[in-house]
């Protein structure tokens, strides 16, 4: 009973907002799709009653804004009813994007941590690398992505890797910033204490700086994995809509398949939420084990 109560305590507000969003969505769908419904009726020479109008706005084939249940049906059709190996399966496309996301996330995290360690230990790197790290994020990823794809394709690298590199480009940044802050989290007293024990920089790093940085590390990872997913989707756009959620978005917009666009969009959002939640679970378990969170 208490477990159920605590579930509702947490899920209640979220579900409440979800219901409001769906209601707003339905309202917007009726308002936006009404023009096309009236247009059709006028050409057919008929007059629509209000209920006919509403039901038409929710069942158009290429609506301006598909109604939630249309998107839900499309997702059901393209996940449960399709074989995973089918090119029309959203699960298949989702996996393509997810694999690039995860690979890019691993690359980005590794690069971010390495840069942060360098920046914290070397004043020269702090002065020289940090400005470039920040500059790298001021360039729109949409401008960089096609170049990365084209250049790598020219040297014979295609498929997963170019997308992962674009993911890495977006995801290393929050890791660098968070880890620099985290590795510098120990205060003067703790560093002086290490000095009184004549501890080397290496020892100080492993025994003090790295454990101190963990809360910052996980906060960074949550941002990094979401950024990584965005990177993977953006990386799928210039490849000519071959595979992945990004490809579904692009193909949908080519052919005006708004329902397909929205279902890919919802899938991407659910995927991002699941990835962030997964990091959150690992974070809680780790920090609890480390005694840094009760």
């Amino acid at each position, binding site marked *: 009973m208490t477990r159920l109560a605590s579930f509702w305590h947490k899920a209640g507000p979220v579900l409440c907002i979800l219901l409001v969003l769906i209601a707003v969505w339905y309202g917007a769908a009726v308002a936006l799709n009404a023009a096309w419904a009236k247009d059709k009726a006028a050409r057919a020479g008929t007059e629509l009653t209000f209920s006919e109008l509403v039901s038409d706005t929710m069942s158009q084939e290429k609506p301006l804004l598909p109604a939630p249940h249309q998107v839900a049906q499309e997702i059901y059709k393209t996940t449960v009813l399709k074989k995973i190996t089918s090119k029309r399966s959203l699960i298949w496309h989702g996996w393509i994007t997810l694999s690039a996301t995860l690979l890019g996330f691993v690359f980005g995290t590794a690069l971010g941590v390495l840069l942060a360690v360098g920046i914290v230990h070397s004043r020269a790197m702090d002065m020289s690398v940090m400005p470039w790290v920040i500059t790298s994020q001021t360039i729109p990823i949409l401008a960089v992505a096609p170049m990365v794809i084209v250049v790598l394709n020219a040297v014979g690298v295609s498929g997963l890797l170019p997308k992962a590199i674009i993911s890495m480009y977006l995801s290393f940044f929050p890791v660098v910033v968070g880890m620099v802050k985290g590795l510098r989290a120990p205060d003067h007293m703790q560093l002086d204490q290490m000095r009184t*024990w004549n501890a080397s920089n290496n020892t100080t790093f492993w025994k003090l700086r790295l454990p101190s940085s963990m809360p910052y590390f996980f906060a960074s990872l949550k941002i990094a994995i979401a950024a990584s997913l965005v990177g993977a989707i953006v990386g799928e756009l210039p490849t000519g809509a071959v595979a992945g959620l990004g490809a579904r978005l692009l193909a949908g917009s080519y052919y005006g398949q708004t329902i397909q666009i929205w279902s890919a969009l919802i899938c991407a959002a659910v995927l991002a939420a699941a990835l962030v939640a997964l990091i959150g679970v690992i974070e809680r378990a780790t920090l609890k084990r480390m005694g840094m969170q009760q």
Partner: protein
Amino acid sequence: MNQTVISAQNLSLTFQTNDGPVHALKDINLDIDKGDFVSFIGPSGCGKTTFLRVMADLETPTSGTVTVNGMSPAEARMKRAYGYVFQAAGLYPWRTIGGNIRLPLEIMGYSREEQAKRVANVLELVELEGFDKKFPWQLSGGMQQRASIARALAFDADILLMDEPFGALDEIVRDHLNEQLLKLWARTEKTIGFVTHSIPEAVFLSTKIVVMSPRPGRIADVIDSTLPRDRTLDIRETQEFADIAHRVREGLRAGHAYD
């Protein structure tokens, strides 16, 4: 027994700040004998903490010399000649109490059996037996500070430098820890340098009280306590105690500490 462990000659230290030079220490001369319990007392800004940090090689003097065990502070630090207790316990939240005490031992490369033996030993010394598996947040502030003293005692330093270790604790806990510290000092025969801004604490603990005054930081008076080494809290009610406390107050006044 009168072997000099720490010796300062014409020691001066000037910090260069944006507001011009600050004379933290000026012409300090002091000898500390083996087994002494020396308190440094004075108002904030008198350089007592800075002096302790110079002994620990955490600050470098501008002029003059300091020797610790006949070596320079840097050499003494590298030989791990002293244990240092800071104002805050500074225990690592991700390590248990035992793990925290083990930390300097790990850094210094003691064997696992030796580590375990020493941790058990110092936990008993600070009366924290059975707490080695607890995390710092499970302990009170006073217990955390005791654990941090245990950590400073865990390796074989015969000097213990303490920078206002009980400053953040309430008076009742502080009295108890003072009494414990005296027992511990008697058992371990260490030389202790103790920074405080409490007159009763300085008088109760010390065999030698160094009264310091600010701007520039210098020594106003050095009082050799006539109290017996073996003392309990009751000694604070005696006339002798009051006389020494009075002399400390005089020293502080002479150094314009009350301005």
